[in-house]
């Protein structure tokens, strides 16, 4: 049995696609309230790991000790175009309870009073905020974020990053954020993992560390030698 403050524990996880080993004996623990960012080159298996944790993909070996129903926010908002916002947020919940909870959740993400509105009237950032509300309304122990800001413009992304930090601080789920944006990881995560060769190759705590130095280190870890910003 896992400790009460642990959101998820992954031990010796393995996943193959045919001959190719994508995840090779990976170990990972995320505590409740801890914001973990997972960086890695394209195809390194970071999304595969997230989908395994979400229960969307099977694994070939190892063990995941965590909630059966983690909440997920995908890169696309995946709102149902035929349902008003509150129904999207309360998807799968009883109408009576769901409505009230959806109202509160929409208010939290800054969309108070929009319960009856439709997804098509939302901007990209707003739609992603509804997706966030849909994830948080379930009070998940583990929140999985699969590049949720990648499709947003730079300004909206910064606002969303601030919002999500605030919400995570309040609801305290364990968070795994898959991203390829080093700056984003440095800006919002408590701990940054670099995935390589199907394993966690490096782990950095962000607390009290110089952001620029950390950024440089991470870029080197990811195989980017020269820092374009310094040049």
């Amino acid at each position, binding site marked *: 049995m896992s400790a009460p403050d642990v959101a998820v524990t992954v031990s010796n996880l393995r996943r193959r696609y045919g001959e190719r080993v994508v995840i090779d004996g990976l170990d990972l623990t995320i505590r409740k309230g801890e914001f973990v960012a997972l960086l890695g080159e394209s195809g390194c298996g970071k999304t595969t790991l997230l989908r395994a944790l979400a*229960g969307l993909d099977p694994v070939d070996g190892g063990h995941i000790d965590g909630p059966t129903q983690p909440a997920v926010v995908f890169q696309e908002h995946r709102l*149902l*175009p*035929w349902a008003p916002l509150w129904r999207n947020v309360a*998807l*799968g919940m009883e109408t009576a309870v769901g409505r009230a909870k959806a109202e509160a959740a929409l208010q939290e993400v800054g969309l108070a009073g929009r319960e009856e509105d439709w*997804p098509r009237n939302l901007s990209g950032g707003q739609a992603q905020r509804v997706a966030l509300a849909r994830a948080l309304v*379930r009070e998940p122990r583990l929140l999985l974020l699969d590049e949720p800001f990648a499709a947003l413009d730079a300004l909206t992304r910064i606002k969303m990053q601030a919002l999500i930090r605030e919400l995570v601080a309040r609801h305290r789920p364990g968070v795994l954020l898959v991203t390829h944006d080093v700056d984003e990881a440095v800006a919002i995560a408590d701990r940054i993992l670099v995935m390589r060769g199907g394993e966690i190759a490096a782990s950095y705590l962000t607390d009290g560390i110089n952001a620029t130095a950390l950024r440089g280190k991470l870029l080197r870890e990811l195989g980017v030698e020269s820092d374009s910003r310094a040049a």
Partner: protein
Amino acid sequence: MTMDLTDRRLLREPADPAPRRVANRELQLLALSWLAPVGILLIWEAASRAGLITAQVLPAPSSVARTAWNLISSGELPKHLGASLLRAVAGFAIGGTIGFILGVLVGFSRVAEALLDRSIQMIRAIPSLALLPLVIVWFGVDESGKIFLVSLAVLFPIYINTVLSIRQVDPKLLELARVTGLSRLETVRRIILPGAMPSILTGVRYSLATAWLAPVIAETIATTRGIGFLAMDAREFLQTNVIILTILIYAAIGVGPTVLPGIWNAVCWPGIQITRKGAANECA
């Protein structure tokens, strides 16, 4: 100051006149869509009056209109039209229901597909004309045989569209159903059926057109009523006017079902402007 003005203009301009411009454009397009049919009628009329077309070959629209008026006032046309519409509606209701149920079964269940789909596809391949003699033997020459033929014709478009629409529901939304812990029933109700609806409706639209055209063949079975009969009868007596009239009736009623998706959208997504793309594709 200048900046402020520019900004405000940028913000304001699209807000006010744009909807009216869009509405105007829609109206223009609507008018444009009627240009060809109306234009053809006018040219046809003019050519007939100028003596370019012999009345025996192609009577003028005005002469067809006179024939129509005579048939309406004598009660002939309403009687035939009513009989045909009744067959179409009955056939659509029966065939559509069966097609939808079969489509849902096969759409959701691989076992049902294995069990049913091949037979349904084989029956689909049979032309109704080939079935006609058998239908007469089975049902005799009364209404039931005609309704049977219409039902059969209507069944397939609904069946195929229902199966495909259920199979083609966005897999990303099905993943969403899994991560939000939706039950099987909830997934069907909240995601699969609404997502499948636009495509099912395409089937309904196609079926309505079929339901209306199927009686043409069904009404060649000994009968004294229906638009198909009217056309057959006119052929016997070389009444070109009536033949043209029946053709125009088929054409006019045939465009009816095209308004259906608009009605569905208005009911299901109230207060929302629906683009031609269809809302269901925009979830990702």
